[in-house]
């Protein structure tokens, strides 16, 4: 139960050059072809094992939504096939089919039935739906008087009233306010723990990295990369910056992680190292230890400005801290070809125990999105251990003192 198998799936839309094209085709019973096929998805294959959770990412127009439509069965594939086992629930768009003049309870009933849940089951779940949506006595008011957030809450509660074997989510996580977002996310997480297979499309890096075992990057209708969320996310970021002509390379680090290096190459990072107070290279540091990150960069072409940025990420790839010389007011103006610069960034490892990585980038202006000379993910990987501090949890070390009075 809960297996999704997608085999060389493809989707093409018919495009007619002239208005009469389709009519001609219909009249001729297919003897005349007047259309061209425009492929929006091609050769997509992947398998989700029961209980696995996979995120699909890609820029707008990469084919993510079309892929979800093909998987849920609202649109028909042009080639290939999708096989699924178990009950599927899809959160593609919430609140569809709600009628403004009927009460929340009546609408919940109808929406549930439309999703294929039987009346008896719905009646049984109704108290749960009510309590999860937390809309109080509004449940017996017409949906017309609801705020959009309340409608979303109710729709989400209905759609997830019964744990499905497969849950398909399309950026529907922005349900109502921050409180309900957490609540809905917790529910999805709980389903996952109980064995629901999860397939979700999101632009939200944090969501994908914190809940998915695997990520699939779609680009121009094809699978561009499949693998651990962190590596795919890094590649995706590089791809975003690299819409200008430049290379993106990936290489595997000795520890098995995939490192992405991208950029247009006007300036390149020659060497990155993390050193402790005595100037030795290190990979294991203690909490709050003073560190220096040294970066050597070489300029290969004359460029108007050069900015060095760096970012510390945790093991899921979520940013912990990052800044750059633009923010610090230390931009190098008019860097000429052949020049070499050494940067030394001093900081204290005020981090919680765990594994961290540092990404380093050379770019212009405020961020790497306009001009990205070189971006290097996982330039340094290091672990933080707690040697001399009292026990604490979290990714940050904050020196604190507690005063107790009685």
């Amino acid at each position, binding site marked *: 139960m809960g297996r999704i198998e997608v085999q060389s799936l493809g989707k093409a*839309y*018919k495009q007619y050059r002239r208005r009469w094209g*389709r*009519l001609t085709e*219909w009249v001729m019973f297919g003897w005349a072809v007047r259309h061209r096929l425009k492929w929006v998805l091609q050769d997509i294959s992947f398998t989700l094992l029961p209980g696995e959770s996979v995120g699909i990412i890609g820029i707008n127009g990469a084919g993510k939504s079309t892929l979800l*439509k093909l998987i*849920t*069965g*609202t*649109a*028909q594939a042009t080639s290939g096939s999708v096989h699924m086992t178990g009950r599927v629930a*899809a959160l*593609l*768009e919430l609140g*569809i*089919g709600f*009628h403004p*003049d*009927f009460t929340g309870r*009546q609408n919940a*009933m*109808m929406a549930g*039935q*439309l*999703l*294929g849940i*039987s*009346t008896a089951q719905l009646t049984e779940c109704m108290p749960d739906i009510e309590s999860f949506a937390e809309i109080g006595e509004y449940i017996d008011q017409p949906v017309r008087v609801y705020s959009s957030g309340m409608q979303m809450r109710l729709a989400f509660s209905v759609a997830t009233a019964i744990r499905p074997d497969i849950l398909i989510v399309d950026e529907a996580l922005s349900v109502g306010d921050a409180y309900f977002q957490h609540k809905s996310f917790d529910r999805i997480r709980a389903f996952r723990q109980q064995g629901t297979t999860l397939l979700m499309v999101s632009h939200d890096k944090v969501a994908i990295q914190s809940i998915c075992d695997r990520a699939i990057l779609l680009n121009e209708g094809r699978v561009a990369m499949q693998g651990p969320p962190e590596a795919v996310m890094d590649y995706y970021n590089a791809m975003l910056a690299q819409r200008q002509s430049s290379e993106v390379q990936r290489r595997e680090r000795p520890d098995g992680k995939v490192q992405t290096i991208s950029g247009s190459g006007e300036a390149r990072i020659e060497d990155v190292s993390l050193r402790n107070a005595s100037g030795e290279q290190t990979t294991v540091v203690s909490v709050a230890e003073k560190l220096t990150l040294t970066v050597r960069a070489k300029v290969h072409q004359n460029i108007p400005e050069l900015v060095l940025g760096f970012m510390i990420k945790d093991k899921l790839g979520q940013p912990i801290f990052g800044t750059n010389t633009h923010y610090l007011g230390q931009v190098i103006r008019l860097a000429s070809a052949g020049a070499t610069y050494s940067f030394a960034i001093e900081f204290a490892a005020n981090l919680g125990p765990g594994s961290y990585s540092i990404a380093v980038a050379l770019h212009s202006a405020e961020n790497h999105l306009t001009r990205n000379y070189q971006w290097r993910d996982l330039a340094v990987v290091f672990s933080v251990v707690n040697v001399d501090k009292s026990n604490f949890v979290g990714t940050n070390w904050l020196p604190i003192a507690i005063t107790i009075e009685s």
Partner: protein
Amino acid sequence: MRTTLRSLWNYRGFIIGSVRREFESKYRKSVLGATWNIVNPLAMILVYTIIFSQLMKARLPGVDKPFAYSIYLCAGTLTWGLFTEIVSRGQNIFIENANLLKKISFPRLILPIILVLNACINFLIISCLFLLFLIFSGNWPGWTLLNVVPLLAIELMLAIGMAMVLGVLNVFFRDVGQFVAIFLQFWFWLTPIVYPLEILPPAVRSWMLWNPMFPVIQGYQNIFAGQPIADWTAICIPVVMGGLLCLLGWRMFRTHSGEMVDEL
């Protein structure tokens, strides 16, 4: 086919709910509620009765009882109303529900089923009133009334077949929707519903053979006037046409329902 039927059965709760909801929603915010369902056709019948039987002094040949024209008119307009409701709403059914079709996976045949059930309920209400009128005005036709059942079945077959064909066509060629509205107007006036067949010139009368709704409507008119149905053989044409339309509609729906979502 069997899997289609089973999936439809699984959605019976939704079908029943939708039928009820559509019925209720029409009148939810009106004071008179479902009464409007009756007032509308009543007004139309009143207008026709006044214009044709009073102002234009049209008389049905051979029948001189009071209410004879009103009964003739009701027999035609009420059943024609059922037919046009299904056809004209059916041709828009997929376009109207585009959002639902694009976002939720469910058996699509549910939509026309809900529509047909709703049309039938509306028809049932108005026919009950008509029957009450027949009883109280002393025009109860007797057991011959049962002949209405096969006629209704044939009419529904025609209507559903046309609705399916037009509904699918309209998704791909939006001209269909515009055309059908006009076409139904012509069809109504080219069928002896408000006027008797006898006032048509003989040359036109022979063309009536090709109007599948003519024998059906004529059948109702005869039944409610307490006469036997003129000839059952003429009914063969609408039966065959209805069957063919249903087959064509089913085939078109099968082959194009996937492509339909891309066009909506």
